[in-house]
């Protein structure tokens, strides 16, 4: 269809339209704004996703169908829970710090984002190891269902969220030796989002292990 061209007639344009003006300019501020609002919305979607599991938790708990919500012995090991929650919280703090350093000095965000990445991955691995040492299986009633469903998909979402942490770290590695200008765009929104996801992880620890 590339042979088809219709010249647009300038006279058809109404007064509402194209006016001699500045050229398009996509500033870094615009990109930062896009990332920020995008992350807020994705954050909203993430909340609704986990809201379903929170709802399942409290709903099934209140129904206790057939007395099988949580039979005796269905208790996840507390030590793992604390370990995972702590690793997530520290990872979020490290990445927030990285964003702050990058914003203020334009460099030096590499080490803290590397730490954040490691801690985040550590939390995910610890979760996998916990499954191997857990005294119940997914068949063990309502609580066990919610526990496995929630934690598995939390790990999936955490791994996806760690993408931006890795990007920041990789950008730092590549920028070694350069003086300035290599700060990846949207580092601050990414840090806020990762802190948000890690916060959801801590929240799941509170609900699944403590409540």
């Amino acid at each position, binding site marked *: 269809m590339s042979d088809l061209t219709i010249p647009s007639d300038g006279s058809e344009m109404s007064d509402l339209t194209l006016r001699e003006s500045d050229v398009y300019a996509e500033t870094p501020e615009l990109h930062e704004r896009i990332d920020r609002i995008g992350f807020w919305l994705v954050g909203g979607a993430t909340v609704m996703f986990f809201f379903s599991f929170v709802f*399942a938790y409290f709903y099934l708990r209140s129904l206790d169908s057939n007395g099988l919500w949580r039979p005796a012995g269905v208790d996840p090991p507390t030590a793992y829970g604390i370990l995972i929650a702590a690793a997530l919280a520290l990872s979020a703090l490290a990445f927030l710090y990285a964003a702050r350093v990058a914003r203020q000095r334009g460099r030096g965000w590499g080490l803290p984002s590397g730490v954040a990445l490691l801690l985040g991955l550590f939390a995910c691995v610890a979760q996998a190891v916990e499954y191997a040492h857990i005294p119940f299986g*997914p*068949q063990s009633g*309502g609580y066990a269902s919610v526990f496995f469903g929630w934690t598995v998909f939390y790990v999936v979402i955490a791994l996806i969220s760690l993408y931006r942490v890795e990007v920041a770290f990789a950008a730092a590695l590549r920028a070694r030796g350069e003086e300035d200008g290599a700060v990846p765009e949207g580092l601050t929104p990414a840090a806020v989002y990762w802190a948000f996801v890690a916060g959801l992880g801590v929240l799941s620890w509170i609900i699944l292990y403590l409540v």
Partner: protein
Amino acid sequence: MTGTVSARPLWRRLIGFNLLWGIVLGIVGFYFGWWLGHQIHAESLSFFESTNQNDVALMLGYVFALVGFLVGLGFLNYPLSRMRGHRATQAEKEEGGVGRYFTLCTDHKVVGIQYLVGIGFFFFIGGMNAMLIRAELLRPSPQLFGAGNYLTLVGLHGTMMMGIMTSGILGPFANYFLPLMIGARRMAFPRVESLTFWLLMAAGAILMTTLLFGGFPTGWTGYAPLNDEANYGFDSYIFFFALVGLSMTLLGVNMIVTTITMRAPGLTWGRLPIFCWGAISTALLMVLAAPVLIAALLMVAFDRGVQTSFFLSSAGGSPYLFQNLFWFFGHPEVYLLALPGFGIVLELLPVFARKPLWGYRIAVAGIVGVALLSFFVWQHHLFVSGLNSSLRPFYMFSTEAISVPTGLIFLCGMGTLWRAKIRYRVPMLFCLAWFFNFFIGGASGVFLSDVPSDVATHGSFFVMAHFHYTIMGGLVFAFFAAIYYWVPKMFGIALNERLGKIHFWTMFISFNSTFAPLFALGLMGMPRRVVTYPSNLQPLNDWVSVSAFVLGASMLLFLANVVYSLVIVRKPAPANPWDSHSLEWQTPTPVPLENFDRQPVIDSDPYDYGVPPVPVPLPPPAEAPAPG
């Protein structure tokens, strides 16, 4: 349409990141996942041997098929490059020519056309299933399909329509025209935009594979615990809807961010075209409702694959959990089918009525009001389920309250028509039909929201008639209005007006003659999704079936129009055939890659039609466009 066609030979052009390799790697991925799933042996999964149906293998197959498909299309190139520390770039290298339509393309206009064709394809399949369903119901006892295949057909029709058509207007038209309407050069996340389209196509293909695995007996609602019990054909339903949900969520995020951040100078919220309000209200519902669906489906996948008991009341779960989660998504879902229709109709009326949109503010209030209220009504789907009988009056009220903001939309339409100079072009006919259909849909909705009346009609053909009036009469009529209206801009060629009018009248009349009798059938005691019915209902059912075939034929008429106008005649359309004042019609046809060569500056809303009133010294004469 811009760019040059590559001079390389065809076989060289087929090598690279494109649909072909997406399909090849998708199939490879499927078999890899399938093989992997069969390597998993666990005590708790031993029953797969006696079922001959390894759900885990099938699910892994779908996961890896999706990964392979996206890799083949080139979606991992950019993230991998960033993970290796490269800087962000705004666009992929644009290849010219037809090849752009078969790959990851970051041009929102290409994505819009991809959506239009892709959705049209699945709409055709869904519609064909409807024809087969009606063919089966020509007689009171099964004659064509077995009871099981009939249920699969019903499920495929419902799921395809409810899944694919949610993006029916946002996909093609908002992707194409929202950036043009707000004076932007691109969407905020162009790669994500392309991803939403390809996810939807992958989802549709996955749903069709259910036929290879025995189909599924649950209809589009997929209620637990029937979904746990179903054949492994149900796994394709899970993946279909989860991918559709993901696609919707990303589409919604993209729409909202684009509208917030990329508006041209001077385009204040009060000047935003009403179609964009419809699009972002829909987008908001998508962002907040679709993740709940994804979560519910993943719970089903867990119940089927690893033996959790989310929905088994005998093992600590509850089927009500699924119903609550599903309808918490499901009710916003039906509004995210309806809301873009509101936007389209109100956007097009002023153009053909040659008047400004009457009551812009209340139209926005109506659209946003419907969107917000839709989160508080989901339990009306559970009026006879035995849940929360003391909350019924509340849900009855909240459901009926939806008619207040919907009424505002009608008021705006009526105000716009008042003393207008109406031109009956094809898009206008579809818009006016929308009011008729949606009124019937809405009024029957009031019957369904009233609990005593609902007890008689719940789960019957009455409900079926109601939601076909709102969704088919609302969304699909708006969809066709949008096609006839915007195709001259998208392709530079207008659809044939005379064929369009024939299409409209065939479709409008056969649509009403198909679905109006279903109200009566429902009241007379015909439940949904049954393959048998009492023989005294046969005359009415036959009438409906024959009307439905005419309705199907009207769709073929439309296809004939498309082929005739776009392929055979190819008469170039004027740059602005409707004399619209909206920004998208001020661009040249075809729209250049960068949309605008200069930054547009907006100084009014796009509805400045009409003759301004002559100033009169005395108070103006009463011209209240009040309805009767």
